């Protein structure tokens, strides 16, 4: 094991897979000069511009091109700079990548990874801060992963690149410089398997992306109040590992779901619905959901901060679920 930053772990995952398999290549805006987030730093020098390509500002065409390349046997990794920008390229993803295998009767697969930055909190404003994973999770044929640690970031990325189906890999801008342990040796993290990031017995907190860390700090803070919180990180949003979530709730009897996307019609609703269906008899309290209020994300720092879910919100909800509310 070694200590590594999240961004470094992503870079390593990319480099290792590019090294392993010539069919792997990358497309996106400004990748050669490492893009605004520097995720691809050093890759063009090492692998050349045949494999690390700058594109015109034509997301729809270059994502569609990647779909074609994937069908023809390559394994493209495409960067769509931020998740907000999928609005200009939903079609190659949703109507083509996701459905071509099915509608043509399984004649071919579309092994494609779409790398994208999600998340708010960095002053990027209404058009560069959205979390839209719920859209993609609702599309059969796609998979969606959201790593919260350097370990998961590298392991899920490598697994995604080796997977035969189209995958959205949404990393969080607020995690870029977060440190964590990463194995020295080769490993992958399986797609579709949740991770219990902290064990506990009183309440289950299901959290994704940056919110995993808010949930962990809320859980730490609740210890002194005598509440033992379990934090489950689905890691893969679709297919969702409902077994792990349901098992946790059966153990704790209480559920808080938290994500950074707007609460309404977000992935937290699916988690809550699954539990209300499959662990109903084990629930001791109403399910709580936490997410962004139903508004776009404003630019101003203090407005943004007024909206984003925090450890404090999570702790309050968890304590309320446990019948130990904080006095106001």
């Amino acid at each position, binding site marked *: 094991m070694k200590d590594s930053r999240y961004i470094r772990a992503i870079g390593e995952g990319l480099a290792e897979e590019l090294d392993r398999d010539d069919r792997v*290549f990358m497309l996106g805006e400004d990748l050669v000069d490492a893009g605004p987030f520097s995720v691809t730093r050093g890759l063009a020098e090492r692998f050349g511009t*045949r494999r690390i390509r700058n*594109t*015109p500002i*034509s997301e*729809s*065409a*270059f*994502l*569609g*091109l*990647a*779909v*074609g*390349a*994937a*069908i*023809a*046997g*390559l394994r493209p990794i495409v960067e769509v700079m931020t998740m907000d920008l999928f609005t200009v390229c939903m*079609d*190659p993803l949703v*109507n*083509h990548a996701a459905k*071509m*295998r*099915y*509608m*043509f*009767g*399984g*004649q*071919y*697969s579309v*092994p494609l990874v779409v790398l994208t930055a999600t998340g708010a909190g960095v002053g990027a404003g209404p058009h560069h801060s959205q979390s839209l994973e719920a859209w993609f999770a609702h599309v*059969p*044929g796609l*998979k969606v992963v959201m790593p919260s640690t350097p370990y998961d970031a590298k392991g899920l990325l490598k697994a995604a690149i080796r*997977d*035969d*189906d189209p995958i959205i890999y949404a990393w969080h801008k607020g995690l870029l410089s977060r440190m964590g342990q990463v194995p020295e040796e080769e490993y992958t993290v399986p797609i*579709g398997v949740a991770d219990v990031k902290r064990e506990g017995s009183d309440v289950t907190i299901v959290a994704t992306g940056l919110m995993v860390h808010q949930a962990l700090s809320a859980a730490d803070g609740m210890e002194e109040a005598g509440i033992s919180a379990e934090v489950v990180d689905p890691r893969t949003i679709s*297919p969702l590992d409902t077994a792990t979530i349901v098992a946790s709730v059966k153990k704790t009897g209480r559920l808080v779901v938290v994500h950074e996307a707007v609460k309404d019609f977000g992935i937290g609703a699916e988690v809550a619905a699954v539990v209300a269906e499959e662990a109903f008899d084990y629930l001791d309290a109403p399910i709580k959901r936490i997410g962004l209020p139903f508004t776009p994300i404003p630019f101003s720092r203090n407005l943004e901060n007024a909206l984003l879910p925090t450890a404090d919100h999570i702790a309050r909800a968890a304590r309320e679920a446990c019948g130990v509310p904080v006095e106001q």
Partner: protein
Amino acid sequence: MGFSNERFVGMYRSLLLLRKLEEKAVEMTMTGQLWGWLHSYLGQEAVAVGVCAHLRNDDFVASTHRGRGHFLAKGLDPKRMLAEVLSRQDGVCGGKGGEIHIADWERGIIGSTGIVGGILSTATGVAFACQYQGTDQVVTCFFGDGASNQGSFHESLNLASVWQLPVLFVCENNGYGEFTRQQDSMRVTDIAIRAQAYDIPGVVVDGDNVLTVSAATEEAVARARSGAGPTLLECKTHRWLGHYTGDPQGYRSKEEMEECRRTDPIPRFQNHLMEKGLLTEEAAQQIEEDVDREVAAAVEFALDSPMPLPETALTDVYSKAP
């Protein structure tokens, strides 16, 4: 063109097969044997045949909702195609795709999709893979005049130009997008002029003449194969029927509907072949009978094929079943 006589006669046969199978499909739609809508290719056959005459087996085509001509010309088995149009188990996509969504990867048919303009970038991507892997295969992407107003047209042609990809963009200009005339959706007469926006060749040909289509394609394919990049080829043609079978065509005059059949590519090519002494009356007769038999066999095969098993509705979503 350095084609052998047999090759020319083969093109004639191909035109006839497209025409006759399509007439049959239209008839089956009108008589309710076909579930869904049918977007007839009648009248546009010279484009598919003229273009595909220059493609190798290992080359690729991408197609549209009006795609049966392209599929047949690229070698899709008429039986399995018709079975798919009838959404049967033995259809080339097992009944999941139906009329509009057909692929046959083994024959280099990338696919056709229900999103106008949607396949252009996919096709460009297959061309990218050819270039990336250093093969000399080429990709042909068919689309309509209406599709050239989609953003995907612009972005895909630009991308193909920037990377000089081996792709031939064939715009089948039949003058209509559904019920709307070309002149109501753009002010240019020749869509080929749009090639200038990407610094690639833009060529206009009579799309109802299989020889002019073929000659222009020969050049464009050679260009793509040699690494010199994409071409936009506009084939002016005519959609004999409505947008789909059953379209009452209130937007089109009777005269126009009759007029547009005047340039029928089949008698034109037949006359040419006969004048050149490449086809005799008897040979033509023989070919026609042969094609009739093939169409009849396809119809029989398709109608005999059972509907797909309900449980197959759940397969093929992912590469590995969960």
